[in-house]
């Protein structure tokens, strides 16, 4: 059953946010949504790059007061 997971990497810098995101992706199931919340600007870019490389779906990037949330969807056919 698919669900939403939150990965909190606030205060962490490269490469920790990407490492934590990958852990969450590895443990996810098809259809899952992963919200990665952080504030390191380069990590936001790097996670978006990883989403592309892994063939996942980038649903949205929300930004508020220096914090960002990258919303990732694991495709149903994975």
């Amino acid at each position, binding site marked *: 059953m698919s669900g939403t997971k939150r990965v909190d990497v606030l205060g962490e810098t490269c490469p920790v946010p*990407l490492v934590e995101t990958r852990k969450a992706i590895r443990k996810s*199931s*098809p259809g899952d949504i992963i919200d990665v919340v952080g504030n390191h600007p380069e990590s936001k870019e*790097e996670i978006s790059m990883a989403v592309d490389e892994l063939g996942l779906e980038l649903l949205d990037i929300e930004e508020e007061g220096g914090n960002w949330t990258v919303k990732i969807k694991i495709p149903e056919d994975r």
Partner: protein
Amino acid sequence: MDMQKDTIYLDNGASTKTDKKVLEAMKPYMFETYAVATSDFAYTMGIEAKEALNEAREKIAKELKGGSQEIIFTSCATESNNLALKGVAEKGDGDHIVISKIEDFPVLNTAKTLEKRGFDVTYLDVDEKGFVDIEQLKDSLKDETVLVSIQHGNQEIGTLQDVEKIAKICEEEDVLYHTDATHTFGRLPIDVSKVPMDLVTVSPHTIHGPRGTAALYIREGTPIKKQMDGGFQENNMRAGVENIPGAVGFAEAVDLIDEEENERIRKMRDDLIKGITSDIPDTVLNGPEKERTPQNANITFQYVEGESITLHLDMRGIAVSTGSACFSKSLEASHVILGIGGDHERAHGSVRFTFGRFNNEEQVDKVIKDTSEVIERLREISPLSKKEE
């Protein structure tokens, strides 16, 4: 979710895929001839196990051009290095040993342990390509020196030391010489009948053999103290029930060594270095161009972190390693890159690509292309890169 694709494995310097022929050679000593090696006065299965062990020993000795009685099986290259350094230090009549600053951790940290026990250790400098300063080596030797331990090929940047010259200097000065040949055995010839090496560490895990077994060549007559107490196995030099499947697998890996394969590996390595350094700006080849182990390429990509490179290459199905701090279990930047005069930035951006039997030219092309794309994208977001603009 499984992130593994058909991995292009370029971390053969860390460990290699076991060859199926190796596994097939080992199986009978797990399921049929599973007894310990016994004396000729015992039961048949034990005698057959002992014969297999000795046959394996002979094959490894032959590859080194040494005598089979000079091969002692151990559990890993680290144990072999521990036995060589501690064994000689404890038996010798001096308290000084010499190593290089860029030795792999088994030699480096064993020397540090000996230092804590009161030994005097000289850590030789290396130049910008990783070559040991031969004059400094000569100057460092003294009456109290019991052992020089300088590796054959470097684990990270592949530098090949002039072991022939080093061995001869040690012979002339009547000092024992040990070399850690973990990264050269099977890939380059080692001839102890011509080069006066007294102790040589060899391992099958880098040549598609099994893990959990290795060996130490000990020249006959070398004064050395046993480190693993217990029974009388391995010519009373290393106690413990022998790993006969491991020894047989080790010998099979040696049997599979092929000069053509080594040339093929060397060519893939050269093509990779050429492709990456010509396609990607601001790269530095770490280590020498020619005098390096055939399987090793080590490149620093300026303005990007090695961890990021390894993570993004992994997501494209390419496995490599880096000298960057977070990647290492010690959380410290590569002592090898720092040892050759590189700064932390150079160490952090270094990536090691090491080839093996199961790589091919098609993979080299993909690795060059993917590395180029990853570096370009990472530099676009790198604050280090922006700082330079």
